């Protein structure tokens, strides 16, 4: 039989899972705490016991998604791992969170500073690994990183046009990697 502490932790996890699902489906801005509580199977009041402010829950979800992406890129960045392998891992990690991550991108400019900083933090973790090797010798790292993110984010933000059914990254990921690594190679970087 689960202890009270275990039950509390399980309730918290079910709230976070429901929030991530609904934020992805409906958007971070338009999902209400009442809807999250209903989807998690808890009372509205119970949700606030775990997350006194709606922003606390939102930050928890963004933080967890960001940690999963950063961890995946970190784990792929073993000694000798090339740029192509790290980019592929980056895309696979986003693909696992594609619906939520795309919503986060679309609504990012309308979210508060804490949420925007969390997004910047996710990109910092990715940038750290992308530029750890030979790529770090390319001039103007920010322009290279933004070229990669701009490419990927454009496809994600317009995923309904590029891939009306299924994952846009599954469909175009390899094309994006080949295009970007080609650009890097033509500019003297190692891929």
């Amino acid at each position, binding site marked *: 039989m689960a202890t009270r502490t275990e039950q509390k932790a399980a309730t918290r996890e079910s709230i976070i899972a429901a929030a991530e699902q609904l934020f992805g489906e409906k958007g971070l801005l338009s999902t209400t705490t009442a809807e999250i509580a209903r989807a998690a199977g808890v009372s509205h009041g119970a949700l606030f016991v775990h997350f006194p402010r709606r922003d606390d829950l939102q930050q928890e979800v963004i933080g967890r998604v960001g940690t999963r992406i950063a961890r995946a890129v970190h784990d792929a960045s073993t000694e000798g791992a090339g740029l192509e392998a790290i980019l592929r891992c980056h895309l696979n990690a986003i693909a696992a969170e594609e619906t939520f991550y795309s919503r986060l991108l679309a609504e990012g400019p309308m979210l508060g*500073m804490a949420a*925007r*900083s969390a997004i*910047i933090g996710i990109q*910092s973790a990715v*940038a750290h690994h992308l530029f750890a090797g030979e790529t770090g010798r390319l001039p103007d*790292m*920010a322009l290279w990183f*933004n070229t990669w993110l701009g490419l990927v984010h454009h496809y994600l933000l317009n995923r309904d046009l590029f891939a009306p059914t299924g994952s846009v990254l599954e469909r175009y990921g390899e094309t994006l990697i080949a295009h970007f690594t080609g650009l890097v190679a033509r500019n003297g970087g190692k891929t």
Partner: protein
Amino acid sequence: MEKAEDFAMRDESKEYCRFCARPDGSMQDYSEKLESMSDFIVRTQGLSSDAARRAAREMLSELPAWKEMPKSN
């Protein structure tokens, strides 16, 4: 921090990571960490120095060591 290399000087008894350590292994103070984190954001993401600094303050406020630090100037 999970692996030895994640810890400052690979010393698992330390409560801070290698990114928060000075070359001699001691922990950076808040202003050093804020400065290095802001610089990294500017260098890799190209944000303005003000925006990078605001973001770095927010991020540091999530870390146990700096929870009490103000998020604004």
